[in-house]
């Protein structure tokens, strides 16, 4: 507790070295975020094409009944992925833009907003990583169960 108070209470001045690192970090983060937004938009557009393509493919008769639902599901999954990519990239973009502004104008509130966006970015990435681990563990358990049953 005392350690946490110490972490929050004192003010450290951002010096020239910190500024240089933050400026370069912001530059690369901006590039990555723009790339992420473009990829997210392409993924969103592509989701409709992939759905349509899957629904038009020829399947064996026993699969055909679920083909339409399957293509809708694939479209939805791609749309969710696109939304997540765009949302996280937007957080990163805001971090980069506001960091640049904060360094140029020495505005403390803009600097706070910048770090807030970086925090949100890593929080979302952390939650996604946790969900991914849960899915991997579940898949392994299901696989193990299938092997045992066979």
């Amino acid at each position, binding site marked *: 507790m005392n*350690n*946490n108070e*110490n*972490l*929050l*209470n*004192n*003010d*450290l*001045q*951002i*010096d*020239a*070295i*910190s*500024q*240089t*690192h*933050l400026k*370069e*970090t912001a530059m*690369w*983060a901006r*590039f*990555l975020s723009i*790339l992420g937004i473009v990829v997210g938009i392409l993924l969103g557009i592509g989701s409709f094409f992939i759905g349509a393509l899957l629904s038009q493919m020829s399947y064996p008769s026993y699969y055909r009944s679920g083909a339409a639902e399957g293509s809708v599901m694939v479209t939805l999954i791609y749309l969710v992925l696109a939304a997540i990519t765009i949302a996280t990239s937007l957080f990163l973009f805001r971090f980069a833009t506001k960091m640049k502004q*904060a*360094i140029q104008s*020495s*505005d*403390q509130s803009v*600097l*706070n907003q910048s*770090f*807030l966006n*970086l*925090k949100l970015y*890593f*929080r979302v*990435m*952390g939650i996604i*990583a*946790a969900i*991914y*681990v849960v899915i*991997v563990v579940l898949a392994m358990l299901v696989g193990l169960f299938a092997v045992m049953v066979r």
Partner: protein
Amino acid sequence: MPETQDSILGELSENQLDPYTRSCLIEISKWVKFISVIFFSIGGIALLLMLFNADSFSTDDGSVAYKAGFYIGVIIAIILVGGVIGMAFYYLMNFGTLVRRGLSTEDINLVNRGLHSLKRHYVIMGVISLLTLLFTLIQFF
């Protein structure tokens, strides 16, 4: 950096790591450590499974030499790419550790080293993205 330029940059900066920024950095450091640990765990397990599961790379042409060469090539490629991405995540973890330690000891040098690690993480990820973009564009044309 010359001393005069250094001092000018120093004077320009009135930004501080105030309590709000600190709380953000502390939460960021927790999340980046969590993300890095997950990356190293899953990456390590995947690499181990791949190293001990050579049969999954076997080909149908029956050539033992071809199979071995193909398998070794794939392993080398995975280790190279995994190593570079692993380095990026090592820097991310380093950023979290150093910034938190810097804030608890009031040491701006440690915070700076942490920020330097964050910069390296983004540089590596940026270069990887650039190369991926380049190879994707080459495939199109």
